């Protein structure tokens, strides 16, 4: 069981959450101006890192928040959690 700290509910089992996926994929802010490559990249292409991964989990059986999680894909260790607006990787690196 991976234990994830929901910013609203506290430390909870990952079975309370739905895994959503890569949180670094940002929808083009101006959909009209974004080119085909940007759309293709956003929808289909993943960094898929072996190591630190910034991802979304939805606290589906709790407050239904989308929680941003910084997690190691090799050890499954949760390094940091936060709100969608947080840049966890940046603050994690800064704290290191």
């Amino acid at each position, binding site marked *: 069981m991976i*234990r994830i700290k929901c910013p609203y509910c506290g430390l909870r089992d990952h079975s309370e959450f739905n895994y959503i996926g890569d949180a670094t994929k940002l929808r083009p802010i101006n959909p009209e101006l974004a080119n085909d490559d940007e759309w293709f990249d956003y929808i289909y292409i993943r960094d898929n890192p072996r190591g630190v991964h910034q991802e*979304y989990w939805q606290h589906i059986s709790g407050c239904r*928040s*989308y929680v941003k999680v910084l997690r190691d894909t090799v050890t499954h260790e949760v390094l940091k959690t936060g709100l*969608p607006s947080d840049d966890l990787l940046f603050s994690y690196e800064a704290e290191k």
Partner: protein
Amino acid sequence: MFSKKNKQQIRRLSSGGLIDRSKPIGFKFDGKPLMGYVGDTLASALLANNVKLVGRSFKYHRPRGIYTAGTEEPNALVALRTDARTEPNTRATNIELFDGLEAKSQNRWPNLFLDVMQINNLAGPLFTAGFYYKTFMGMPGWHFYEYFIRKAAGMGSTELERDPDTYDKKNAFCDILIIGGGPTGLSAALSAGRTGARVLIIDSSKLLGGQLIWELDQIDDKPALQWIESALKELNEMKNVTIARRTTAFGYYDSNVVNAIESVSDHLPTPEPHTVRQRLWQIRAQKVIIATGATERPLVFSNNDRPGIMLASAARRYANQFAVKPGNRAVIFANNDDGYKTAVNLAEKGIDVRAVVDSRTYVNEFWKTKLDELGVELILGSAVINTHGHFGLTGVDIASLSSDQKSTSSQSTFISADLLAISGGWSPNVHLYCHAGGRPQYEASIAAFVPGLRSQSEYPAGASNGAFSLIDCITEGTNCGIQLATELGFSKTIFSIPQTDEPSVTPIKALWRIPGKGKKFVDIQDDVTESDIKLAHQEGYISVEHLKRYTTLGMGTDQGKTSNMNGHAIMAEERGEAIETVGTTMFRPPYIPIAMGPLAGRDIGQSYSAKRKSAIHNWHHENGAIFIDAGQWLRPQYYLRNGEANTTQNMDLAITREVKGTRGNVGMVDVSTLGKIDIQGADSSEFLNRIYTNGWTKLAIGKARYGLMLREDGIVFDDGTTSRLSEHHYFMTTTTSNAASVLSHMEYCLQVHWPDLDVKISSITEQWAAMAIAGPKSRDVLQKTIDEEDLSDETLPFMGVKQISIDGIPALIFRISFSGELAYEVNVPADYGEYVWRRIMEKGTTDNIIPYGTEAMAIMRIEKGHVAGGELDGRTTPDDLGMNKLISSKKEFIGRRLLQRDGFLDPKRPKLVGLIPTDGKSRIRTGSILVKDPNASLPMPKLGHVSSGAYLSPTLKHPISLGLITGGSKRIGETVWATSPLHGEINEVKIVDPVFYDKQGERLNG
């Protein structure tokens, strides 16, 4: 259950042991009635009754006896209990004896003594590692040979009967979890418990104390049992300490979550009423002390598998804990001090210990003196090189070992013995440490793998950490408990380490195999021999993983607990490399085999998945509804009338009746299962504009609109109607199956993409009951039911929305239609759902109102060419479904951008059409494939498929279907073939417009 008359337990010692001689127990082994005592295991009771032969080995069907006294048992696997409670492959060494216990030996036919498959033993050189890979390659194919080979494989048998017992799950939280209640675990629990930390200590046995239970150690000059007793007394008094017995940790998962199985009732004939058999524990700990001890290893020499050969620690455990003589004439063979302990314990209990054979050339004076005193011969620098006997050991051959241990003297000495106790050293139980992510390291001084770096908050201590002496266990346990409690912020307390009476240790000298001819078993359960390992090496299967997979080393029920270390070390010797280089295979959960029952817990049978019933369910049930599963929902599929049996014919009649009744008069269907989402906030219109393909900003208050949602990749995601209740308030409906995913999608959009939008959404599916009332008389019926409002076209036109009341109950009424008829969807608070439904049915009686189910609903929507699940299959675009008119070109919305890709514009894409059999009567099955020439050669070019088929349109009096076909509406008028080879059906069909009925939509006005 059986006669309590004390059958002879000829191997039972007259005194001692932790058995209750006042409580004799009857049990049966292979049908033979035997007696034991409370406190026995099945294994100890069998030994007490001089039962030596308990099983047959996997491959060669060699006679096998009890080999260990614990969880690691590879041989003594029995079928425990009978009938539906049969538990195949159960370790006799772990079964607490209970009254009436029945056990049977396995893997033999017709019986243990006359096993015909022992022919395999004679063909030994043929059945070497890799045998099957090298033959049976020709015709008639492996599946033919396999039929015979499979029968010989396997061990226990099962009839797959339904389990009469129940299971449960439990959650636990603690500061410090201590796994193992031996000296290490108890010491840790004491020291951590005294700080006030919340401690949970679990142990797989009924009795805490671990190995101390059956060793004769002294602590502070008193028997260890007294120390255990006082420790338990203190722990029991601490409110912050919980002790869980008969609870075995089987896996260490992420985030320091440890799972365990509690054997609640396995020691009883059957569980007590209202009590489960086993319970799954999910333990969330901040720190975990792994105090799981160590497992003794056997030695690898010729014919080291005969009944009567067992681990040295097991032999003394049977004598000390169970007062059983594991043999009458014993020889001990070891490469470490453990054998001496066994020799002394056995000799002191009056067993004739003939000799201690030590492969080392030196042992300390303490043991020498002890053996001298007891008259036990000590043979140093020697080894057992062969054994004799068939169904039981009769003697051993002993020869001296060369200094490099690679050869033995040509002369050997025979010693008559019926017990050979062996010890090849101890392997720390690093399993849980490895589950946590750790990689063990080889420690030459104890010839074993020990824990290395920590990967989570796991702290191996004591024997599981490679510290084998009692004093080290107590010290490590005590210190670990204190240290972790302090780290968690609990204050230190004073403690002292007690004293023990252990002699100094002469270091082990690794001895991985003893020269000699004959089968030298490494994995005694799977019959993997030293020569198999040599062959694997010779053929290039030199990685430990290849070794395992090629020879099946360590793949049995014991997962190599007694065999892997020896096997890997032998491979290291063959490769001429260091053991740490060769490494070890992965330690995978579960630590012990675990039954599947507790993993499912109570979620079995009807409780496998939640059952969702609408608020109107009871009415449906009382009125002949036949229900269909729609995901977790139960929905009326059709309604049978009084006396109608549920036959296909009556189903067809019912559906026809419902369609005709609705189109002719009025019908009502429960649509509470549709997803309903409440949307509020100043930016609600903008939000809908972004998630639907069509425009929403101009929707008037009090109006509903059909909306289409796409995925980001342009594929149709969902559809439904959404109504504007006020300036900033919408009521959305989704399909039943996508209710949850649409809600999550919208939440994602709001929280991640557009947090700046002022929109709040909430699922209200369960809060509202919904019913669609349809048919030319629907307005009349509804008008009669509601309190005051006028439902005329003027006040409630098509796609209008109105808040009304029914008997004072507030209701939302939408004039929308799925059936194509004049229709209304009535939403009321769920608690009033059944009441309102009943009221409408009552009021509609004179208009011949009829309830209809999902089948009639489906036929009517096919008649109208509306798409549903069959068409929204996650592969169709709006254009495929003829929905381009819903694609706004004036705004941005999710999925828009990717609609223009080549693949989406490909003229070959199948598009929605209607299909009618040219003969006017053949049923066109859903899932039929549309082809141009049904006799074309295979693989046959396919034009499309039938996505929704109606066996008959009661309205049109002939079958109709919807399908997707290349070319779509351009082909209208053509005929093609619908084929269902699975049913041997080929029917010519005509392609028509998907709207079969009332193309102008005139009926919407009644």
